[in-house]
């Protein structure tokens, strides 16, 4: 219990940490106070160049990136330019240390923040310094400490735009360099390869805690088919009885359980011998003179005139359930069916329940802690549950003794009994694909008596 409580607390704490630096959809267009592009002096770029570069910055903001670009000619004497810029050497800017670059860009941000909200420091600044010799132009990125992770941008792919810009700068094309760099930056926003999300300390702790849970969950999943296989191999101690069995019971042995096909076959037989007749309204008319398992079980639902209404026929599978249960019990008592069916079923259901519980318990912390092992555990458990479900639906209850009884019966049964047997055993095959305007009356009748309603 303590482990669960600690896990839950870790999950709650981890959930409060946002996956992205910014809340909400970081891909939607964004507006920030900082102007898109400023040059010092104003006339540094031609109108066309200015407009083209602005278009690229706008494109970035439309993709949710708070980007601003500043281009400074070192010879400009504007008051808006921070002092640190003017302290830069007039030539050979490439010799600047990283600390000097950081200091320069930080000075700019201190003077003119580029961010989505005051104090967020989540903006991205491209500062372009243009010395007298334009081929020495340098571009510096300043990525706010809270800017990344952001869409497909990474520190690496942002930095990788610098050589692109420098290639143009070296030819003296300042505007084109900035433009090309921003083109690449814009592509990276949408099509770059983002960095793998790192786990926080809390997520790491949770991730470690998930390892045993993942293993247990997977084991619960694996246990289901293993236990089912083990249960299936247990032999029954009941010796086959030698009593006479009906065609319906033999059909149930062949099917492996007393399915609704058996009771429907009994109903068809009742219709054949005249004790039950279908009515125009989709109901069944019971003969007052006849008795028998299906007639008896239907009679409480019939009117004074012996009509079982259509609404009851639609529920006929539920109404005839007592016949099936009784027949199953009888077949189990004589050894034709395993007498452990219910116990086995309970075991498998219990295991499935445990696996489901473990999945429910683990799914949120596993996702929050990004535990691939946990996902594997869940997948294994889901497969196990699916297998268990399939087993419960399709497992045959028939024992070896039952198979012997059936073989003996089939050798001696009359043609009429063989037909009754076939009526149940092959019934599903008959109704499975029928329908449409060319369906035979028999098919419709069988479907109707299965409670399947419309055909």
């Amino acid at each position: 219990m303590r482990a669960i409580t600690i896990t839950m607390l870790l999950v709650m704490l981890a959930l409060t940490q946002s996956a992205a630096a910014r809340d909400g959809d970081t891909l939607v267009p964004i507006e920030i106070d900082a102007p898109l592009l400023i040059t010092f002096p104003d006339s540094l770029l031609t109108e066309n160049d200015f407009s083209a570069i602005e278009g690229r910055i706008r494109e970035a903001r439309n993709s949710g990136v708070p980007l601003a670009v500043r281009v400074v000619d070192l010879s400009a004497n504007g008051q808006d330019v921070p002092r640190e810029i003017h302290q830069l050497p007039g030539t050979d800017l490439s010799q600047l240390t990283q600390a000097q670059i950081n200091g320069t860009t930080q000075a700019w941000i201190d003077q003119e923040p580029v961010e989505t909200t005051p104090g967020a420091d989540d903006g991205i600044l491209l500062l372009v310094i243009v010395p007298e010799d334009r081929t020495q132009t340098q571009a510096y990125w300043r990525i706010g400490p809270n800017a990344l992770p952001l869409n497909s941008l990474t520190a690496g792919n942002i930095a990788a735009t610098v050589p692109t810009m420098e290639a143009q700068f070296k030819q003296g094309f300042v505007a084109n360099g900035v433009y090309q760099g921003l083109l690449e930056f814009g592509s990276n926003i949408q099509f770059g390869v983002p960095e793998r999300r790192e786990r926080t300390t809390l997520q790491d702790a949770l991730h470690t805690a998930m390892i045993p849970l993942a293993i247990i969950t997977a084991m619960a999943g694996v246990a289901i088919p293993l236990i089912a296989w083990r249960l299936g191999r247990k032999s029954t101690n009941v010796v086959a009885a030698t009593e006479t069995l009906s065609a319906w019971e033999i059909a149930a042995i062949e099917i492996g359980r007393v399915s609704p096909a058996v009771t429907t076959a009994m109903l068809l037989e009742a219709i054949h011998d005249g004790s039950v007749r279908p009515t125009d309204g989709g109901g069944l008319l019971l003969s007052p003179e006849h008795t028998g398992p299906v007639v008896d079980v239907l009679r409480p639902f019939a009117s004074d005139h012996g009509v079982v209404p259509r609404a009851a026929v639609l529920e006929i599978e539920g109404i005839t359930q007592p016949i099936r249960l009784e027949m199953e019990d009888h077949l189990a008592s004589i050894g034709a069916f395993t007498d452990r069916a219910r116990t086995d079923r309970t075991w498998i259901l219990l295991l499935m329940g445990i696996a489901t519980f473990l999945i429910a318990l683990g799914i949120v912390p596993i996702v929050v802690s990004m535990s691939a092992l946990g996902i594997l555990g869940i997948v294994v458990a889901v497969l196990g549950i699916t297998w268990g479900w399939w087993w419960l639906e399709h497992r045959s209850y028939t024992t070896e003794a039952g198979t012997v009884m059936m073989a003996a019966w089939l050798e001696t049964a009359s043609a009429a009994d063989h037909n009754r047997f076939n009526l149940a055993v092959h019934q599903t095959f008959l109704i499975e694909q029928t329908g449409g305007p060319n369906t035979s009356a028999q098919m419709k009748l069988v479907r109707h008596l299965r409670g399947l309603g419309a055909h």
Partner: protein
Amino acid sequence: MQFPKSNRLTTTVSGGWVGECTIARARIRRIDLTIALLIFAIGFGWYLSGVESQDYHLDESRWINRAHYLEDLADPFGPTWNHQYLTRGQPPIGSYSIGLGLVLQGQDLETNPAYDFRRSREWNQQHGTFPSHDDLMAGRRWNAFLGGVSAALLYLVVRTLTNPIGGITAAVFFLSNPLEIWYNRIALADTTLTLTLSLLYLATIHCLRRPRWWLAIAMGILIGLGGGNKFTPLALSIPLAGIGGIILLRSWWFRLRNSGIQDTLFWHLPPLSHLGWMLISTPFVALATFVASYPYLWPDPIRRTIYMLNFRQQEMDNQYRLNPRFQTDSPLESLHMTYNMLGNTWSSTLQIFQWLQLDRIGDLLSQLDLWLAIAGTLALVVIGLRKGIRSPELVIAALIVFQMVTVILSMRVAFERYYLPIMVGEFVAIGCAVGYAVAPLMGAPRDIDLHVRQADPPATPTSQEVLS
């Protein structure tokens, strides 16, 4: 009251027809399988014959680019599934499908970068965003294959509802439709959706004919996969769950009034094996499948789905702005445009007559597709209403109409690919119209030996008895 006697033939016994019917069913099943395989072979060959000559579609770059999503599924917390443009922009099922197609043909999943629509074609060419010929052809061949499978499935859907003539008609209309021909010969995700919807229709019919949980879950999964491809199919779970709810309530009501039924869950609710529960489960299974198939959603399924929906809306607004020719301003206008496009531009009838060099007749009859589809849908509704709410006909009609309404309501630009999900229903309806029309010519089925004369109605009003 005189109880009427059975007028069975004295020479037969109960169940004697089973053997004959079983043989007949086995034969029919073999024939159906043969026809379906034949349709698949024709469809696959037909689509395949045009993959080389088909014009390049810019979206193919994106779909082939995202083929790597398939292998990235093995790393569900990897960078691919971060909140980023491509991953947020499009659900991944179509990408998985293309990836699977490439892998099955021996291609790797390292393909071209994605086409950037903000840049010029030259820029994209320079940056290698066009897929290689091998990748492109592999993607197209895969869709040709899926198109062939879809044609075979459409045959089975309509054949199961009506008869082989109806099924063949649906397949012929599908295979000759110019829009389907185009999209099944290029490497986009729409063929996968067509296949998913065809499978959904088939699973739905079989589940209603004989309710089974695995089919109900398959239906939910197919809807989820459809949603994971193009969103709108998620709406198909609504009519299924609604019909399931009505069936369940009706059964519950009966059980509340007849406490003699032992087979109940609790509070006299029907057991879990009841069809109502199965149909009600479809939205839950669909949503679970949608989320499970898309690791991007895992950290915050609701919020990220909303992000996606908002993005799709934003994209639709952009397309609306950029494509005045395709703008629609109201559902009525969308409906009108759909009618016009399906009836005149993307008409199978028109295409068939054009192949026969009878263009003028084709022009005159081009709207036959739609008229047949309307007739088929109406026939499904009428037959469904007569049979009752559990009839596959009614549910299939509901799915066809719901898919169409969802697309039309969400449409702001009438791009041709938006019609593809509608067209799956259209072909089913066309096939049904023809299938029902020729049914009288198919010969009545023989009632072999179990002659059941329906009982005379009882003297008292049946309705009262039914209510009691």
